[in-house]
Each structure stands twice: as structure tokens, then as C-alpha cells.
């Protein structure tokens, strides 16, 4: 589904991603872990097309198309969804209006008819139950005045409504209490299907107790330095990231 080869990217001339290779197949859940500053969030943002980042080398193929050639809104309409680490507030615009616009732009691209207000509300009601959110939620302005947990749940709600093929969750577990974490994880699990894939970007193993990954990758200094199965996440939890740092340093010819 997603094939990343030799991806290098940076911001304002500073290299952050230094040759990333990653294959994600349909139905798979990949966890991308790593210490702060290793480039996890940058990877998520670059895949979604954030304009602040410049891709300097490499290619990304998504469902047979050149992902990097598409503007962010086209990537989204093609089924790429990013759950933001810091969801953005849009004052005065209701959640329902925002989501309805998103759904209808996506449907327009697929050649489907727009949903009217009633049809959309029906869809929304069903998805609200999935993420255990109150109806009052939909009339509130997008993320404005939301608690941290509400913002993250709102991301999952949007994901549920848009039904992406490739969902990238950027530290969705950070700052969540245990109940919110359970709801978010449950949402992710229920949205898992054989024809879609998920990339979980996370610092902690905590989320992986609820969402079981097929593959775990460790990102360090802009490279994937280690890949494995679930047990790798557990090992990281137990040993921290220092041994990865040492291993990575050892594997490379002495720098400096």
C-alpha cells in the first residue's frame, strides 16, 4: 500500500529524515517509535504534505501513485489521514460543518453525490457512538476550548467519519489519561480493516497494549535503525532508548 524508499527531508535547510525505507501493506499496523527529536513527527508530517518540510531525496508510492507529487488536500482525498499531535483550533466553525465539508470534498473526488445535512448527521451519530462522544460535541467550534483528551478523541472521530485507507496517528496517545487512551485505542481497533493500514507514531509502548502492532520500527536520528515485532516495543519499554543509541553509534563508522 505504502512504499517509502530513501526518503530524505528537512526544514529550513536542516536535514531531519536521512534515508527512510518502509513498506506498509494493507491490513497492517506499524508502530514507529523513537526518542524525542528522532524524526517521528517529521515523517508523519512529510507523508501528509506539510508545506514547512522540504523533501530532498527519495520517493513515496501510495496505492501506485507518487504521493509526494500530490498537494496535501489531494493526499487526504485519496485516503491519507493524519491524526495531529496538536490538533488545530478553528474558531466559529462547528465540528459538524467542518467534517461535512471534508466528507463532501472527498465524495466529490470519488464521483459520489454530496451528502445532505440529514444524511451527514446520521453518519455522524453512528461514528460518535464509536468514540463515545456526546452529541453536543458536533456543534462546538473545531477544537476550540477542548480539553487535551477531547481534541484527541475528535481526531479519532474525524478519522472514523473519513474512513481513511492509510491512517497516520502522530502521538495520539500523548497526554491522555487511561480512560481516554482506552477510547482512542478502541476507536482505532474498530476501524481496522483488511484493506486499510495504520501507522502509529509513539514515544511510549502504552498505546501498543491496546492496539497490537504487526511491526515495530525504531527511528533514531532520522533513520530506521531497528525493526521487529511487538516484542521490540516491550524491550524498548524495559531498556529505554539508550541501547539503541549505542547500537546505532556502533553500527556506523565513527563519526567526527
Amino acid at each position, binding site marked *: 500500500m505504502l512504499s517509502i524508499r530513501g526518503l530524505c527531508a528537512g526544514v529550513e535547510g536542516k536535514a531531519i529524515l536521512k534515508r527512510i525505507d518502509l513498506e506498509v501493506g494493507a491490513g497492517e499496523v506499524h508502530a514507529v517509535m523513537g526518542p524525542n527529536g528522532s524524526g517521528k513527527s517529521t515523517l508523519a508530517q512529510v507523508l501528509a504534505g506539510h*508545506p514547512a518540510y*522540504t*523533501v530532498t531525496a527519495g520517493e513515496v508510492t501510495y496505492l501506485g501513485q507518487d504521493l509526494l*507529487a500530490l498537494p496535501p*488536500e489531494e493526499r487526504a482525498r485519496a485516503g491519507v489521514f493524519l491524526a*495531529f499531535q496538536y490538533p*488545530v483550533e*478553528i474558531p*466559529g466553525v462547528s465540528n459538524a460543518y467542518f467534517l461535512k465539508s471534508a466528507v463532501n470534498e472527498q465524495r466529490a473526488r470519488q464521483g459520489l453525490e454530496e451528502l445532505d445535512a440529514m444524511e451527514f448527521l446520521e453518519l455522524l451519530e453512528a461514528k460518535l457512538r464509536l468514540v463515545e462522544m456526546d452529541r453536543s460535541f458536533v456543534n462546538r467550534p473545531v477544537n476550540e476550548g477542548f480539553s487535551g483528551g477531547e481534541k484527541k478523541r475528535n481526531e479519532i472521530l474525524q478519522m472514523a467519519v*473519513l474512513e481513511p485507507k492509510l491512517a497516520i496517528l502522530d502521538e495520539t496517545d500523548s497526554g491522555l489519561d487511561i480512560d481516554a487512551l482506552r477510547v482512542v485505542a478502541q476507536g482505532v481497533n474498530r476501524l481496522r480493516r483488511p484493506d486499510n493500514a495504520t501507522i502509529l507514531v509513539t514515544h511510549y509502548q502504552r498505546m501498543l497494549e491496546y492496539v497490537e502492532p504487526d511491526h515495530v520500527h525504531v527511528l533514531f536520528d532520522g533513520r530506521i535503525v531497528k525493526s521487529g515485532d511487538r516484542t521490540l516495543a516491550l524491550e524498548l519499554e524495559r531498556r529505554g532508548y539508550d541501547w539503541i543509541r549505542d547500537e546505532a553509534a556502533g553500527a556506523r563508522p565513527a563519526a567526527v
Partner: protein
Amino acid sequence: MTRTGKEERTTTLEALADREYPWGFVSDIEADALPPGLSEDVIRLISGKKQEPEFMLQWRLRAYRHWVKLERTAGAPKWANVKYAPIDYQAIVYYSAPRRQGEGPASLDEVDPKLLETFAKLGIPLGEQQRLAGVAVDAVFDSVSVATTFKEKLAELGIVFCAFSEAVRDHPDLVQRYLGSVVPYTDNFYAALNSAVFSDGSFCYIPKGVRCPMELSTYFRINTAGSGQFERTLIVAEAGSEVSYLEGCTAPRRDENQLHAAVVELVAHEGARIKYSTVQNWYAGDAEGRGGIFNFVTKRGLCAGRGARISWTQVETGSAITWKYPSVILRGDDSVGEFYSVALTANRQQADTGTKMIHIGRNTRSTIISKGISAGRGNNTYRGLVKILPRADHARNYTQCDSLLLGDRCGAHTFPYIEVGNASSTAEHEASTSKISDEQLFYCKQRGISGDNAVSMIVNGFCKEVFRNLPMEFAVEATKLLGVSLEGSVG
């Protein structure tokens, strides 16, 4: 390859310059116009063409003499935060009317079909069959009113809704009593000019206890090149009556500036309510700031009696320069004044707009919600005065003044003046300035929403509190207008 944010910003703001102005056409209608220039003779000619009573002519002449004095001394007001070359008042055509067959139209059937066509093209059908349900329209073309719909139906309730020149002829007592009672010709430079040369506009009179069953509206169209439009509107609401009035305006696309200096006076007696809404969309000039309307307008309402209520809502998206402060004098105890405003400046547009709330009576209340949006090289200024006089016990004002910036070459300025002369009163002022951030745009795009739709959504969200106060049809219109005005402001 991903472009950097900065590159994207630059290209998108360039694109903003290309925004369309679909109302910029000129109608080929033969005009009966005076030669350019201003003198006592011109004023006598205007008054004569309108067959005005003597009191009207004398009033105009007094206003003219006052204006001449101002012109020779202080000149036009210079305190506003706008820049423009001096206006040559002798180069302006002060009267231009579509040439009439015979005595002028007595009914719609006699109106020049080209005029009806012009208004239909602007979305204002005047013919019996197509007219807008629930909205009575007075259509003003250059210096004259060409048609007023639903006049007879309103007359059954005692409501007078007609062209100002008609009111001067048919209701001289009312005109004489109220004209200049809220905005005297000595008020300011442009008010003096307007009082001397004003041509047409609308007159509304709502009798005691009558609730006007439909929206009253005036649509102003400037057509003739080199002409100024000086309209005058007067609305009088007797005790316990209620009226909602709408105003819209457009002009052809031209390289020269045209002057529009209007005066609007509202009088609300005891317990009366007047709601006045404007969607101002005069031609704004091109990307380089060539052409466009100078919109120098004095609007003021008087809450004359106890519990009267006047509410101004304005959406200002057009004009090269806007200079306008719809105000309320809260004389009656318990009276209420409101001002809700959205002002958008794109390209090289300049706006200096706001309000004055003058609290004279006890327990008077006022609310000011101002939303300024600047894009391109636009310059947007909020200027407001809240004045609470010593007698105004327990007066209350709440002001909220927000600015939104698109890009980094535009400007937003706020000049709030608060003068409180009564210790039991309260005045609250809140202000904010924000930008549409790259993060907000990216967030919307990541959900599949196009850049244009995202900007329009964010701007409409920003303006929500104001749009809520517009009548339904106008709210839809305003939302669309903002969308068109900002089209292409992101890539």
C-alpha cells in the same frame, strides 16, 4: 516535491489580486446629466429638476454655503487612517438620471426595460412576476429612484416607503421635521456636501404600533462615468413600531475613482425598533489600487424615546476607501444601540470604519462587535467612540474588536475612544488580532478541504457573530461575497 510555506504564501497572495467583480458592467442607458461642477446654480438646477418646495432649496443652499466655508478652511477631514489624492469637486457630475420618456414612470410598466434588465442582472428583479417575496425594493440608479415595489401594499398599513424625492413632494411635513435632525448639515464635510446636492435615496415612515410585515430594501447602483452618488435615506419609526431595512450597492469597474457620499438618518421613538443592514460591495479598484469608489458615508440613528432600539449590521467588502461610522445616540432611557460589522480590505483597499455610541439616557445599553479582515495590501482600521454622559446612570457598553490578517503585507489598526462621565456605568473593551495560520490551512487541507474553501470557512467562522445578525437572505449573500472576495488567497 513539497514547496516551502513561504513560497506558497507569496503566490497565493498574488492570486488574490485577480479576484473577480461580476458587477463591474456598464449599462448603455442614455443619461440626462448636468455638466461637472458645483455651484449655487447647480444646486438650484437639482432642486428644480426635482420640483422641490422652497424650504428644501433653502436648506440645500445653507448646506452648500457651509460646505464652501469648510472647503476653503479646513477641507475634508484628515484624521482618518486612509490615503488618497485630493478630490477635485469641480470635476464631479452631481446629477445624472436615466433619460425619461415624457413625465417619468408612474408605474413599473413604464420603466425603461434596460433599467429593469440592469437590476435583474444584479439579482434584483423588479417586475411583478419575479420580484423577491417578502422584500420591498427601492431601486436607485445614479441620482434617481427608478422603481419601488410593494408600495401600495405597504400603504394599506400606513407605511410610507418611497424615493426620497417623492417624499419631499408627498410628505413635506415629515421631511421638514426630520431631515437633518440626526445628522445636521454642519456635522461634517461630507454631510454638508451631501445635504447640498443629495439626489435620491429612500424614505420610510412606520406609523405608531405597526410592525412592518416585510423587509424594506434599497439597492444603489452607480452607472454614469464621472458622476458622484449622494443619496439620502431617512427612516422614522413611531412609538412601538418595528422595521428591518436592507441596503445593497454596486458600481461598474472603472479606472477613475468615483465619490459616494451618503447620509442616513434613523429616528426610533418610544419602544420602536429599527434594524438596518448593509452589504456594501461597491467596485473596489484593481490590484494596483486604480479606480474604485470612495465611500464616505455618515450614518446615525437616534433612540429618541424610552426603550427604543437601533441595530446596525454592516458587511463592507467593496470600495477603494471606506470612511463610515454608523452610530447611535441613546437619548431615551433604557434604549439600546448595536453595531455589528465585518469589514474586508483586500488588494489596496482601505477602510476606516467603526461606530459611536453616545449614552445620554439612564440604563442605556450598547454592544459593538467589529470584525476586520485584511488581505493583500489592504489596510483596515477600527475607530470607535463610546461616550457615557453624566446623566446616563447604569449605562453599559460592551465592545469586542477583532482583526484577522491574511499574509504579511496588510495592516490592521484599532482606535477605541472611551469617555465615561458617570460612575455607575460600565464600559468593557476586548480586542484581538490573529492571522490565518499555516497550521490552520494545513489542518483543513489534510482533511481534504481545498485552500479556498478553508480560507472562506475560517473567515466565515471569524465573522459568525456578525452574520448571525443579518436577515437570512443577506447572511447567505454575505457568506458568498466573502468567499468570492477571498478566492485565490491561498494556493
